[in-house]
């Protein structure tokens, strides 16, 4: 991939109360050579927005918290307006490594895929996923297969790459964590090419605590997993 390709790539970071880590994440991404960074502050009550803005990123703010899915879709829409040729989304809590961005975006730039999923379960590097979280992820993969008709090894990964074509095609309505599954559903319906690449993950104390504190940002939380399942069932039979 040439350096000139980097200018066409936009990095989208949905963030909610990430003031402690957002600046370092932005720095890591910049060190990898990516300058187009969109931070969507999803109604944070801390100064996530001002930190991101002062870092020189393209910053958007949701007036009230709408969930990770909504924030990601806002960022993707903004990237589309700014003529992005590819978008990479990643979580703001620092669990993803910026040096994996290249790996995720490569199949898109080389026109091999429309959507690339950074799979936490396919990699032997980085921290191993906690067993309980792994179990819930596999459960979510099975649910995604049953209700949305597509099986991938990490259906809930927030580290993804999207081609321009995928950006123009996908328009989700799920605000929270079902967003990740809905994207796959739409990809299946519109025949978008999906691939997976292994990514490293760091389960820091910060990211672990974050998941415990904020229920909307915690798919690994059993309550949210259950609520996601119930919603999928109800949607499937009532609409």
């Amino acid at each position, binding site marked *: 991939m040439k350096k000139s390709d980097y200018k066409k790539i936009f990095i989208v970071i949905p963030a909610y109360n990430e003031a402690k880590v957002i600046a370092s994440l932005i720095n890591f991404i910049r060190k990898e050579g990516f300058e187009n960074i969109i931070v*969507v502050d999803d109604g944070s009550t801390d100064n996530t927005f001002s930190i991101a803005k002062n870092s020189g990123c*393209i*910053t*958007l*703010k*949701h*007036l*009230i918290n*709408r*969930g990770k899915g*909504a924030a990601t*879709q*806002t960022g993707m*829409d*903004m990237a589309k*307006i*700014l003529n992005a040729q590819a978008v990479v989304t990643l979580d703001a809590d620092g669990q993803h490594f910026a040096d994996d961005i290249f790996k995720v975006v490569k199949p898109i730039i080389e026109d091999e895929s429309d959507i690339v999923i950074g799979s936490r379960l396919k990699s032997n590097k980085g921290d191993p996923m906690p067993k309980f979280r792994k179990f819930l992820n596999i459960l979510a993969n099975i649910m995604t297969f*049953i*209700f949305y*008709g597509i099986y991938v090894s990490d259906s809930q990964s927030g580290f993804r790459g999207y081609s321009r074509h995928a950006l123009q095609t996908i328009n989700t*309505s799920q*605000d929270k964590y079902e967003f990740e599954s809905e994207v796959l559903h739409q990809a299946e319906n519109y025949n978008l090419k999906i691939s997976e690449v292994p990514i490293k993950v760091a389960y820091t104390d910060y990211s672990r605590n974050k998941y415990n504190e904020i229920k909307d940002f915690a798919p690994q939380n059993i309550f949210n997993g259950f609520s996601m399942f119930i*919603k999928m*069932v*109800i*949607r*499937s*039979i*009532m*609409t």
Partner: protein
Amino acid sequence: MMDFALYQIIIMAFGGILILRVIIRFLLKKKTLRELIVATIIWGSMIFLGYLPTPLNLNDKFSEEYLSVITISLIILFYSTFSNMIKTERLENSVTRVIRRKAIEDALETYDTNNKNL
């Protein structure tokens, strides 16, 4: 021929209506084959449960009618709860659309005036 209690007939009829509804939506191409299969399994299980012999001893007309009223109430309760959930979700989606549009408009306004290089 098997004798069914009224509440069993209600459960099976309700399940049947919902399966029919999904089939119609499938024929109208509003549902995929997979969605048809999932919904049929779910509502089919309900019909099967209704078909099973009652564990209660319904030896008088009063208790059977009593159970039928409870069944109808439960069906109405669940159906309206689920419908309301779907309606609430649509309303939430509308709120989200407004919030998202506002965020993008605000950002574009800022960049138009302050950051011409974007």
